[in-house]
Structure formats: structure tokens, C-alpha cells
């Protein structure tokens, strides 16, 4: 069973539906006991970092989630949920992340030419870096769906894929049992479902 962490942020309908589409039971929960009983966790997120970080703090779930992950439970952070995994975030200020992956989240405007639109919205191709267990059922060059204005930096040792948008942006990361995708697998068609299948098959 996969538990999608409900801390009041984001639209979890598609995420839950995409797990049922691959035959995986998924529950949306803010109950620490349910999270503890799950085989794996998904940390969703959308909107501004500060609001999401505050919502996560207010949910009172940070300690239990960190304990579960440090004890080896796989967790996948998606979009802003991935950005929360890092040490620092520089969206409208400076904020602490969960510190599960070394690196800092910064505006993509610092990486790309000024004439490109921010946010990046749309389908872009994955360019592989370090090998990822998430990508066992897809191929390099497959397209996934992005909506973001910020991305992770200084995390090259953990980066499993980048995407080219006027410069190279971090598309996914992996550090032991902690995974992050800047793109939305639940909105990336068949390719996205294959990524989720690889995630739920991990022991």
C-alpha cells in the first residue's frame, strides 16, 4: 500500500487515480499510523514553498515522516514535494527544507536565458545522469510533464535526470530510499505510469 501524505496542499485526485490505474492501493492520509503502515510514501505539493513548508509544519507530520524515511521507507517527492526534500529553498526568501538530499532550490530564471517563459509549462524530454531505479520501464528521451519556476541545484551527485530548457534543469533525484521528480508522473501519460510502477515495485 502507498500512502500519499495529506498536509492540505495540492490536488491529490489524479495522484490517487494514477496509482489505482497501475493496480496499486493508495490512500491519502494525514494519520501517522497509516503512514507508518504503508510500504512507501508520496510527498505531493503545489504552489509556493513557504506555504507548503508551513502547511507541512502545521500538520505535525514532519518528525514522523523523517523517522519513517530514515528507517528506510521509500518516499517519492513530486514537484514541490521534491523541492521540500533539499536543505535550502530560495523562493521569496530563504527557507529550510527537510534536508534529505543535499542541495538548494533556486529560480530557473538563474539558469535560463531571459527570453524564455517562467514557469516552464509543458512536456520535455528526460536526459539521464546517474542511473535511477525509477526509470527501469522507460527510455531516455521520453517526455514528461513539467510545471515549475524553481528547480534543485548543487545536487549533481544525486541527480538522475535533467531536462533542457535553455539550460539544464534538474528533473529527478535519488538518494538511497528517497526519490524526487520535478515533473508530474501522474500527468505524464503512459511514461508517468511506468515510473510510478517502478516506484511501487521497490522493496
Amino acid at each position: 500500500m502507498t500512502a500519499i501524505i495529506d498536509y492540505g496542499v495540492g490536488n491529490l485526485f489524479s495522484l490517487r487515480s494514477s496509482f489505482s490505474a497501475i493496480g496499486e492501493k493508495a490512500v491519502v492520509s494525514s494519520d501517522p499510523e497509516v503512514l507508518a503502515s504503508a510500504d512507501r510514501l508520496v510527498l505531493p505539493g503545489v504552489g509556493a514553498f513557504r506555504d507548503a513548508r508551513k502547511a507541512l509544519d502545521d500538520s505535525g507530520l514532519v518528525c514522523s515522516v523523517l523517522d519513517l524515511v530514515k528507517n528506510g521507507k521509500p518516499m517519492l517527492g513530486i514537484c514541490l514535494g521534491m523541492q521540500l526534500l533539499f536543505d535550502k529553498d530560495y523562493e521569496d526568501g530563504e527557507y529550510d527544507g527537510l534536508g534529505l538530499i543535499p542541495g538548494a532550490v533556486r529560480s530557473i530564471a538563474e539558469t535560463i536565458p531571459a527570453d524564455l517563459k517562467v514557469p516552464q509549462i509543458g512536456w520535455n524530454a528526460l536526459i539521464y545522469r546517474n542511473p535511477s531505479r525509477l526509470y527501469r520501464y522507460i527510455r531516455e528521451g521520453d517526455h514528461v510533464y513539467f510545471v515549475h519556476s524553481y528547480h534543485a541545484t548543487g545536487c549533481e551527485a544525486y541527480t538522475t535526470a535533467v531536462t533542457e530548457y535553455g539550460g539544464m534543469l534538474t528533473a529527478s533525484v535519488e538518494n538511497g530510499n528517497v526519490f524526487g521528480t520535478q515533473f508530474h508522473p501522474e500527468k505524464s501519460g503512459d511514461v508517468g505510469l511506468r515510473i510510478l510502477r517502478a516506484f511501487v515495485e521497490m522493496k
Partner: protein
Amino acid sequence: MITKRIIPCLDVRDGRVVKGINFEGIRDVSSPVDLADFYSRNGADELVFYDITASSDGRRLFTDILRKTAEKVFIPLTVGGGINTVDDFDRVLKCGADKVSVNSGAIRNPSLVKEAALRYGSQCVVISADVKRVDGVFRVFAKGGRENTGLEAVKWISDCVRNGAGEVVLNSIDTDGVKKGFDLEMLDAVCNAVSVPVIASGGAGCMEDFVTLFKSLPKVDAGLAASIFHFGEVGIRELKEELSRNGIPMRLV
């Protein structure tokens, strides 16, 4: 490299897909859930559901259809039609919409875009504008293209973007249903005024119209059409292959 998007638009009334020619003379096409699934499997990059139902019974049918679609279609879903309040955003987002498109609601209530963007984020708010030339000036029309609001379109759209709209669907009433190509002049004017993605709508009659659109206006991010896809005049897979052969970046599946 980010790809250009091809987006079929499904006008839904009482749970069925319809398409008007110049917004009148509506013809039934097919089941929204089946059509959405078909398009998703055949390369559509995104889907737009436009609810043209007036009754509350029809609204319930629509959200039911939306939920059923979102349960089996895993590409971005944009929903529009009858979005007048932040509660309307909530209603469709809970049923699986990813983005919400506002049109008349933003004309009636200028603060709607700002309120929705603050609550759900700009990525969720799409401004959809029906625009027509009146004495040589681009004007915003309301009520499905029947009523001239007198608003100057480029300024109004720019204001919406400043208030937090994250994407623009520009539908030219002058070219809609005519099938002689997109309104390049109107699109150019809007693309030069805003820095968010612009989706071209109204006028596609054949594959060549999309080639012309993306070649002449590299700033346009996506092309939207309805009847040519619904009636099988243009296949999405074939269209994307043709665009790719012409050097336009495409997601080929």
C-alpha cells in the same frame, strides 16, 4: 527541449461532446470519457473540457463526467465553462481538473483571477478570451461570443496575467469555425504583450494550419482545436508527425 502542445477541446453539454460552428448550430459528437481516453492514447498533450451546460442538473452530469475522465486519463486536464467564483474552481479541481479556465467570470468579476491564483497558484488559472475585431480593434466578447464587452483585448489579457493568470487561451471569433487557419495577427499581438504560455484557438482546418502557426509564431506554445479532431479530419498522431518533420519540437508517442 520543451515541445509544442496539441490540445483537443471537448465542448460538453449534458454529458455529451458538442461542437458549434461560430458558436451556433451545435452538433453532437461523442462520449467525453471515451473521446478523452482515445485522444490521450493517440498523442494529445492535454485536454480541455468546456462545460456549456446552463442547468444545475447538467453541472452535476459534467462533474461526474470529469471525475470519470480524470480516473483514467493521465495527461493535464483543463476545465472551463461556468467558472464564476472561487467555489467553482474548488468544485472542478476536486473532480480531477488540473487547470481551470475562466472567461465571462473574469469579465464580470475582475478580482476572480487574483483570488484564484492566490488560493490555487497561477499554474492553475487559465484566462480564456473570445476576441473579435470591431472597427479594427480587438475586443473581448462575453457569453460565448455573443456580447461585446467593449474591453480592449490585449490590455485586458495583460491585466489578467498581471493578476496571476498562468496561461492564455486566445480564441479568435473571426477565424473560429471558418477552418482557414489560425488568427496569426491577433496571436502575435497577444504573444508580444504577455510572458506566459499562449494557446492558439479558432480556425484550424488542416495540418498545414498548425505548421504555419508554429513556424510563423515561435512564441505560441500550443494549438487547440475541436471539430477537425472530433470528425477525424485531422488525426493527432499524424499531425504531430507532420509538425515534427517540419522541425517543430513534438512529443511523439
